[in-house]
């Protein structure tokens, strides 16, 4: 017997899908991160070598994107936590609006700070 499985997308669904996708992206980043860090075992030279490989404009822009993904997951995660605690459940759409606003503002501020340092040494 056939079972239909899709439903009109609304704000709650969108929040859930984006949360899942950003979560998956972060898992991928974490694996990459661990792989990079593991070069420490090979000593200073090996670690500097791998860091050098990431020291190019593509990865710097990807880092700006990464911050965006983290920030979204963070703020929507706080929204979900509030909902789980029974806070403003009836106003979940408003909560999502606030989460998105905070996400965009923080992402913008941090991006500006990061891009302005592009010429120099990252995170110094």
């Amino acid at each position, binding site marked *: 017997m056939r079972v239909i499985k899709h439903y009109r997308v609304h704000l709650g669904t969108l929040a859930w899908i984006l949360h899942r996708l950003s979560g998956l992206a972060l898992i991928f980043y974490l694996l990459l991160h661990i792989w990079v860090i593991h070069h420490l075992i090979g000593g200073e030279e090996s670690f500097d070598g791998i860091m050098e490989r990431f020291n190019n404009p593509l990865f710097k822009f990807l880092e700006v994107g990464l911050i965006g993904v983290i920030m979204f997951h963070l703020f929507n995660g706080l929204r979900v936590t509030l909902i789980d*605690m029974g806070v403003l459940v009836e106003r*979940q759409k408003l909560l999502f609006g606030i989460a998105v606003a905070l996400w965009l503002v923080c992402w913008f501020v941090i991006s500006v700070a990061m891009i302005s340092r592009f010429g120099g040494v990252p995170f110094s």
Partner: protein
Amino acid sequence: MATHAFKINRYNPDDERRGHYMQEYPLDVQKGWTILDCLNEIKWKQDGSLTFRRSCRSGICGSCAMTVNGVNMLACETQALTLKSSTIVVEPLRGYPVIKDLVVDLEPLVESLYAVKPYLITKTPLPTDQERFQSPEERAKIDGLYECILCGACTSSCPSFWADKKYIGPHGFLKAYRFVADSRDEGTREHLEALDDKHGLWRCHTIFNCVEACPKDLNPTKAISELKKELVREKIG
């Protein structure tokens, strides 16, 4: 030219080869007609083989829940003109096996309902010649919970249910909380028993489809939050 085109998802178990298909019916919709009126009109005047479930035609029994233009609703409570669309797509509820045309098998809905023991559980004996009294304030606590007519619109819209057929579902949680919140009920543990499980509360991903779908404007997600708090309170005191 008819005012509306009804596209209805059809399926006849005696004609497996044909499977599921969409059939279109033109219909002149009058002001005030509900979707159920329209379906009746089609069944009575155009195609007697069209099959759907309805009983009360007044939003009480929950038989006529179906998916209209992609959204779950009660056919008897929705006026066709309010959809503001000249094409109206009618499909059976999602997530449940289709028996025929718009009729789905709601057995899983009933089974998960039984799991939460959807009845008043009491331990202290009834005071002689008396009912179990409730103050107006205590009674107000089950507003927004007791109104559920178990039509299945919420659970059928829930992706967690699509992924796990044993998932209790928003209707079960709402019903469980209706009794947990009832001042006369003394069986909180019994109601919660089935909820602290991989097919229970923790599978809710706060997608809110159930809230969008409920034709009675109830909020199962709110009930889920309250039940989660209840479980956590039980565990860590």
